């Protein structure tokens, strides 16, 4: 078999491409190169500049077909009407979805807590969380104070969750959701993270590209 095809096979093996897929690509490639040579041409007529980079070509082809775990490169033309979204796109959407879910959870918990606090209005501009003997509360600056009365804490501390236990649970859920939301925002959208992400090349982590992918 053609030396170029053998190089491709080696690369596909290294990338973990299944034999059935590697055999199919190798057979097509060998047949096309053989036809070009029979017509007086060369592998370059079939492969263009990729003829000089078998490993890169093999990796790009396998990635484009979704046969490896490597991300599909973005250097090629945008395929119109593309039906499939790459995994990295799904990951990018996961963070905003998680942020919205956390926000909704926090809002729902806040409503439950506010209801249990006698209808006091809830301020979102939380400045500090105060923990005092007998009560736990969020102090939103100079505005009205939202708190969990000590009466609610005592049954829980004693292992008896009564009617007021719901408010305490909601308060804890609110705190956890807010902390998770702040951490998520800091990790995903902080200036440092955005700067680091923009510094990456489009092919980072991807296979070497030789050809139109």
């Amino acid at each position: 078999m053609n030396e170029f095809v053998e190089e491709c096979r080696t690369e596909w093996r290294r990338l973990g491409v299944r034999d059935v897929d590697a055999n199919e690509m190798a057979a097509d490639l060998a047949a096309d190169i053989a036809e070009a040579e029979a017509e007086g041409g060369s592998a370059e007529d079939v492969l263009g500049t990729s003829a000089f980079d078998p490993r890169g070509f093999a990796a790009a082809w396998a990635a484009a077909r979704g046969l490896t775990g490597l991300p599909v490169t973005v250097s090629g033309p945008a395929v119109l009407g593309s039906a499939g979204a790459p995994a990295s796109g799904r990951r990018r959407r996961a963070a905003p979805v998680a942020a919205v879910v956390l926000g909704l959870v926090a809002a729902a918990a806040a409503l439950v807590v506010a209801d249990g606090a006698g209808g006091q209005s809830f301020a979102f501009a939380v400045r500090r969380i105060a923990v005092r003997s007998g009560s736990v509360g969020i102090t939103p600056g100079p505005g009205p104070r939202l708190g969990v009365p000590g009466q609610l804490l005592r049954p829980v501390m004693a292992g008896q969750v009564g009617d007021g236990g719901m408010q305490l649970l909601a308060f804890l859920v609110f705190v956890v959701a807010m902390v998770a939301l702040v951490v998520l925002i800091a990790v995903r959208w902080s200036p440092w993270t955005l700067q680091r992400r923009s510094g990456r090349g489009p092919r980072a982590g991807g296979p070497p590209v030789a050809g139109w992918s």
Partner: protein
Amino acid sequence: MGTQEGRRSQLLRGVLDLCLLSVMREGPAYGYEMTKRLRERGLSMVGEGSIYPLLGRLERDGLVETRRAASNGGPPRKYYSLSPEGERALGAGVAEWQVTRDAVDGALGLVEAEVVA
């Protein structure tokens, strides 16, 4: 690679998928057959990259259908043909290309007139 060849590559990069879909519209074709059809239209792949990764993407995205069949006197080949979704994508892409081409022609036409003058 010279500046002119580099520019040509960049220009082709954005529309080669449309060119491939277009030559498939003439009838199912295997990889090298499509390369030859493109060459007949002045798009030689020598000096450019291979079309195989792009064909892989088109297949993965459902824009082309494939089947394995015997070629003329040769071994069985993988034939690519347009899928209905590929037909729609080609139509939309060609319309988009024409709008872009006209706009670029309008801009470059002025430059050419100045150079000639």
